[in-house]
């Protein structure tokens, strides 16, 4: 009997990314997500097995939390660079203005450590199933299944912190 896919998908992000997407992308979020929040809690069989603990939503959440306040955290530096890159792309595609680009870069450079805290998106799978794209295997951290949602809307997920 085929198993039922899990009801929820999980994605760990930083709060700053949430703020930027809400404000400058009309509340549409680009996320990587997984069926398993913490693969170490599942057995050695099934999709959870191929997801490295350190890059699972739970693993990432713990790493971001540990790194908060560390100005040398490479995880947070990656996030900063990633947000700036996205802002450039949006600007060059005409999705945001020059003023918006300046504002985003300023916020990334100036905002406090609290804005880089990790948050978990708990995504209602039923609302997004048709739009799930399997993440490219070569760009995933492991062999476990991960998905990309390019246009996750605010009402399609709960955001929590633990």
């Amino acid at each position: 009997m085929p198993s039922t896919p899990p009801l929820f998908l999980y994605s760990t992000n930083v709060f700053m990314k949430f703020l930027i997407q809400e404000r400058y992308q009309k509340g549409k979020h680009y996320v990587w997500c997984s069926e398993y929040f913490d693969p170490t809690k599942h057995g050695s069989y099934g999709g959870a097995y191929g997801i490295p603990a350190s890059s699972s939503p739970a693993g990432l959440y713990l790493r971001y939390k540990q790194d908060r306040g560390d100005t040398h955290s490479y995880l947070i530096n990656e996030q900063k660079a990633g947000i700036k890159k996205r802002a450039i792309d949006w600007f060059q595609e005409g999705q945001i203005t020059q003023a918006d680009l300046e504002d985003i870069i300023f916020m990334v450079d100036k905002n406090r450590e609290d804005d880089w805290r990790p948050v978990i998106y708990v995504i209602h799978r039923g609302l997004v199933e048709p739009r799930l794209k399997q993440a490219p295997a070569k760009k995933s951290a492991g062999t476990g299944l991960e998905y990309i949602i390019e246009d996750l809307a605010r009402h399609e997920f709960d955001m929590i912190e633990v």
Partner: protein
Amino acid sequence: MLNTLKEIGYNDALGVLSELTRTFVPQSVVEDKEIFARAVDFRHENVLTEIRASLDLAPNDNSDEARDKIINFISDQISQIVLGGVDEKVVKTRLGNKGALRPDLYEIDYGPEFKNIQDRGIRREHVGQALNYPDDVEHVLPEQPFEKNGSYSLYVKHRIDPDPYKCFTLLVISSRNGYKQSVMDAMRIYPTDVDISSARNPLDLLRAFLGKYGQQITVGKQTSKFFFLAIIEKPVVIQEYELLHIAAFPEGHKGYGLMQFRDTGPTIEVAMAYATNDTIYRKDLKKHGVQVKL
């Protein structure tokens, strides 16, 4: 700025830095939509070569440490290109108006009315802490016709104590104008005095507070303890005081509140209006050991 970036235009420089970021930052952190893909050419190599030279990194150093240095360098270059020559105050004004500015980057104006707040036993340091490090904040982003005079921010700072009688929430109301904030009012709200069990945000807290200490106000034909971003039809008015009328305080009692409204002719636009019976409120504060001026 890198010399190799100075040689190319603004947009091209940003495009090169965007592509280089994609090279070094994990896929899961950057969006990899096809519409954002750019042709990689010799300029990317030139810029990367100059970055490595600036950081004293060997061309074949692909260690995590090297990668992190390169990412930070690219990030800094983006900031230099985008924000170089931009007046920081202009950016802060925009962000301040949106309520998106980092809390401690707002300039705070305490104004002459702050004395009333001090008489409630609230010091500047308390208000400063609430504004800079709030536990919760609600930035009102009003639409027309309140865009200019309805930009309020409500800040909350909780004080937790094992003794429930000493627990309170400090609520601060300010008016934003760009990156400047004027403190309009501040009050300590004790849950042993005010039922805040159904408050879900700072505005709810204010309503709960006024439910206990507010005076009835009549605007036009409407009466309430709190008016907020309201447009009210103006009846035929004989005297100006009939535009907005506060119910009489008991003899000897003093009030304090905010009254920001405008007569447009056919309507009364009320950005915010409330009046607190400050005498009763201060007596309650005194019971909690607060040094107030009665």
